[in-house]
């Protein structure tokens, strides 16, 4: 199967999932106990406002009709209107997206930079003290609350004696963004790298046990070359998959990290909107996050097929 054919098939697989995602996001409003319009308006609720929201959200229509309307608006890019800012919720999300993408991108980069060397060393020195130390990392590291890692990094590098990085905010210009993103991205990376180290070490061990590694060694290649040119290259295929699978965790983490570092991203928008009881924005952000993850899954599948043509024929 050609790569394009494979990609098209994967895309087709995504359709029912995206359909389910919209269904779940749509039903969020119906999980609100009592009258959603009254609950969302809270103390600002007046009979007129409640009636207006009922009309806007079509709450008086039968469920299937409501869902159909929701889908109709969705395909026109209409995610509803913010109750707080009175602007389209979709626009708010798009405005905040660059900050979150920065965080995801740099966070992924950092997590690879942490996980690859540690996993390689650990696999190469299997059952030696170094390996035991690296293997303890996931055991301890998975229990760190992400926001707490962020606070501890702030304490160490942004406050008191070491003021190398800003306490929060997004900075100005490319280098400003980069400078203010280092600690948040490191937080994201530190939270996810225990999982990556564990998986990458396992696949490195598998690769190191294979015949072509034995061949490379028997040719008298230096061990470093065997590790980096032969083993790591193949283990990186599984790295892509592992990253793809865990991207949901990474993306979800940005929500909390943005809060710690006061980054004006999509995650912060979600938390602020929750406290403003701005339901359409919360709905839009939830949908945006899910779509982001689905796209990452799709990209991962395609990269995987690109690196390892065998998966196209499975």
């Amino acid at each position, binding site marked *: 199967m050609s790569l394009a054919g494979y990609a098209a098939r994967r895309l087709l697989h995504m359709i029912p999932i995206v359909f389910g995602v919209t269904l779940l996001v749509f039903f969020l409003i119906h999980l609100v*106990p009592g009258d959603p319009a009254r609950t969302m308006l809270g103390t600002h609720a007046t009979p007129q406002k409640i009636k207006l929201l009922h009309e806007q959200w079509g709450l008086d229509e039968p469920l299937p009709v409501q869902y159909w309307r929701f889908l109709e608006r969705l395909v026109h890019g209409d995610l509803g209107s913010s109750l707080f800012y009175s602007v389209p919720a979709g626009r708010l999300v798009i405005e905040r997206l660059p900050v979150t993408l920065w965080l995801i991108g740099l966070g992924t980069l950092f997590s690879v930079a942490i996980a690859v060397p540690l996993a390689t060393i650990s696999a190469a020195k299997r059952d030696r003290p170094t390996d035991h130390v690296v293997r303890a990392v996931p055991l301890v590291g*998975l*229990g760190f*609350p992400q*926001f*707490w890692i962020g606070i501890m990094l702030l304490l160490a590098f942004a406050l008191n004696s070491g003021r190398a990085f800003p306490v929060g905010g997004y900075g100005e210009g490319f280098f400003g963004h980069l400078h203010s993103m280092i600690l948040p991205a490191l937080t994201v990376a530190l939270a996810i790298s225990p999982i990556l180290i564990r998986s990458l070490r396992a696949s490195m061990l598998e690769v190191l046990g294979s015949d072509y590694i034995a061949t490379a060694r028997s040719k008298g290649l230096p061990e470093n070359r065997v590790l980096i040119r032969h083993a790591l290259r193949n283990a990186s295929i599984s790295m892509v998959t592992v990253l793809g699978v865990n991207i949901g965790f990474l993306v979800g983490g940005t929500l909390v990290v943005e809060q710690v570092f006061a980054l004006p991203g999509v995650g912060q928008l*979600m*938390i602020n909107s*929750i406290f403003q009881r701005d339901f359409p924005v919360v709905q839009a952000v939830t949908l945006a996050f899910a779509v982001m993850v689905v796209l990452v899954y799709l990209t991962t599948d395609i990269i995987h097929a690109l690196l390892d043509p065998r998966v196209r024929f499975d």
Partner: protein
Amino acid sequence: MSTAAATVVEAPAVSHRQRFRDRWYRNTSFVAGASILGVIVLLAILAPLVTWHDPVQQDLLNTLQGSSWDHPLGTDDLGRDIWTRLVYGARTDLRIAFLAVVFPFILGTFAGLISGYFTGRTDSVVNWLVNVVVAFPFYVLIIALVFVLGPGSRNIYIAITIVGWVSYTRIVRGEVLVQKRQEYVLAAHAAGLSNTRILGRHLLPNVITQGVVFAMSDIVLDILAIVTLGYLGMGVQPPTADWGRMIADGQTYLTTNWQLSTIPGIAVVITALALSLIADGLADLLRPE
């Protein structure tokens, strides 16, 4: 015939149990994890005996105190004793985390059993549901659900259940797909046993192990989710002591009183480590021969 099938089935389960009984105390991870967790749980249960302050009583004349005989870990910005709040926080967070793991475990195991066993349409529907839930980042869906349902521990359980069942389903389904080709299941079929009986008495005991091991790591995830919700102000409502809330409250005083945020965080890390060690040990002890 059914007795014969039942005997064959019970063999692996019994050997797990026996292995467990004979060897648990020699498994360093398990013993270390269980000891640490034991101390924390004991402290949480005996909270009124090991603390001598009220966890919610404010004392505005003694705010942000350093450690002393009366306040071993000092006081917070409202003059509440940190040690007391830490111990009562353990009570809140551990209770919610342990209970929160039960519902996804039951629901996920059930869904995994039927989807792996019946395949066909049931399997497609369950798989579709799993893929839909997995498309949402963990925290995004939990936070969105707690938002629409409202705060409070009951809604935290509901949110965690809606998000958490999928992992159990994946694990159990995978195990069922392997086990149902084994001879003991084929024999049970041949003996004319009902699907319910095969699922409940024969497959379940043999596929549950992986689920149990995962449940231990899942409690870690739940504790992290609960403290994260607390940190964001969406979890257990104040003034109830909760580790996440304590970290959030302390963040304002990071430059002057760094211990306010640091101490509860360390409590989370130690608790999570204990549970991870238990999970590690259990995986080792319950691994099939």
